[in-house]
């Protein structure tokens, strides 16, 4: 017999898949967009050529591989920041939130399970990025340390999810216009090294990059996939992500519980 801890998340994944797949056009086009992004950056990397090489030397010198990993894995940040809050506002608008909240499933579990499908579909997108990039566009991941990459991926999801849960707490209370997502998202995209290595930033600005989990996530992922670094070599990034996770996950749960209680106190739990 399958335990509740397994079949409950599976029920959410099944529900979200049925809902998502029923919007056939959107379901298909989300994958087609990946091909266009890859082609765009393939030609952009050709244009940059050797010009960017000094900054890219630690990553093997190839801008296409560098940027593709940046774009692919930054999807996790995007989905973490948006999915938790989207779940709440979506359920508030559609009227299903009340029905869910009176079931025997705790609120944090509802929020976490509801995000699983988004993470799965993001993982499929990331795999497609890497697969298409390496098979057809010369992305170099021949020496990849897949176990190291997987470890970094798990820590990335945990660290980013904590941020997403904090964002959902804002939505729970403010309903719209969550400042946390906006600030954190913009700063991460700007300073996290998605499109360029943080070494191009001036020193004072680069110091802010080290406060962001995405910096360690992308750095570690590139080192694991492109350079095939060992776990020992990846340790600084792994430890930084672990530290973020240890600090942010409990904090995010405390903030979220406070937000739920406040919304229940204000009577606005199901408002939008």
């Amino acid at each position, binding site marked *: 017999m399958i335990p509740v801890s397994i079949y*409950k998340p599976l029920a959410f994944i*099944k*529900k979200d898949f049925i*809902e998502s797949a029923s919007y056939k056009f959107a379901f298909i086009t989300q994958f087609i967009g990946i091909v266009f992004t890859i082609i765009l950056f393939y030609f952009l990397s050709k244009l940059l050529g050797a010009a960017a090489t000094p900054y890219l030397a630690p990553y093997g010198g190839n801008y296409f591989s560098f940027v593709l990993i940046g774009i692919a894995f930054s999807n996790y940040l995007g989905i973490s920041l948006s999915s938790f809050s989207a779940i709440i506002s979506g359920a508030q608008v559609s009227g299903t939130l009340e029905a869910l909240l*009176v079931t*025997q*499933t705790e609120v944090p579990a509802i929020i976490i399970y509801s995000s699983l499908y988004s993470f799965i579909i993001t993982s499929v997108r990331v795999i497609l990025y890497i697969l298409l990039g390496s098979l057809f566009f010369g992305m170099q991941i021949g020496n990849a340390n897949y176990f190291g990459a997987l470890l970094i991926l798990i820590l990335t999801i945990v660290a980013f999810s904590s941020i997403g849960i904090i964002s959902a707490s804002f939505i729970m209370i403010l309903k719209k216009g969550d400042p946390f997502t906006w600030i954190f998202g913009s700063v991460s995209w700007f300073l996290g090294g998605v499109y360029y290595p943080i070494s191009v930033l001036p020193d004072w600005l680069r110091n802010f990059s080290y406060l962001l989990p995405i910096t360690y996530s992308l750095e570690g992922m590139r080192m694991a996939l492109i350079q095939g670094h060992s776990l020992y070599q990846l340790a600084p990034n792994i430890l930084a992500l672990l530290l973020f996770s240890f600090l942010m996950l409990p904090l995010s749960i405390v903030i979220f519980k406070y937000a739920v209680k406040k919304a229940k*106190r204000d*009577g606005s*739990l199901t408002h939008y």
Partner: protein
Amino acid sequence: MKKKKQECYQNLPPAVEVIRLTKSYPLTKNYRDLLLHPLKKELIPAIKDISFTVNRGEIFGLLGPNGAGKTTIIKILSTLVLPDSGKAIINGFDAEQDGDKVRRSIGYVIGEERSCFWRLTGRQNLEFFAVMNNMPKDVAHRQIEKLLDMLELTDAADRACKEYSTGMRQKLAIARGLLAGPDIIFLDEPTKSLDPNAARHLRNFIRNEIVLNGGKTVIFCTHNLNEAEDICDRLAIIGGGNIKAIGNIREIKSTYRSRLQFLIKTKVVVSQDMIDRIKNIVGSSNVISEEDKSSHGTAITLTTDHEKADFALSELIKNGILIHSFQCLEPSLEEIFARLTEYHDSSINL
């Protein structure tokens, strides 16, 4: 049968006990207040010092106009809203302290049409909510089939909910509320979007299947008076966040009977002189007389108390007027409701 049921529940706590429940909501600030008084909190009272008890196996109505506080009460009982003060005990558990135990005891049927996942089929919706309620797969399967059958949804079970009619969606919401076999069901205006036939059918289902056969307790929120009269064993009339009257329909009506109308029909036409004498007894503005074809005499309507009505009747008899009928006109629930909810000056407990 009802008495027998009450005996079965003798050793159990009441289904619901609401003790001095009070709740206010913060007022949404406009831009000016947000700038000038960012920390000032203004509150609107939703319910004030509400107390009532719901017995097991009964249908208890919360009757009130829009904004009276019915939904606030239901949401507190369902653990969706926390009270400012007071207690709500459901199935013996405190709604504030034992939220998870309360949720195991209740089924909440929302009147909103869009409370199911529209792109899932009816069956998929129920399967999903069965998992959310920790139901083992085989038990859930049996229960879903039973509920689909009881609610006549079997044929539509594998169609997407977006294709359902309003009535079918409402039935699905009820199936979802009953899915985990809760002891207590909260129905928040379940017939709101239904046509009269579908609404009547649903009320019969609630009365016969859920309460009489299923042994459940139902709290039924409505602002529809006929519906409340039709289905509720007892009800509380709520206005302005207070309970204005509570009891069964007969008790509520009898409380208001003393201030109501009496109709005397005579077998002969009553002279104006006699009518004036009656007016002297009960007050001229409280007497209406008109010719009555059914009794071939006069119909005299008196708005007064029992004592004066009896006195007026004996005066007529004493003067040799043959009486065709004498009756106390019961107030309709609508009249009581209008009186109680329009003027918030009196509270009546029966």
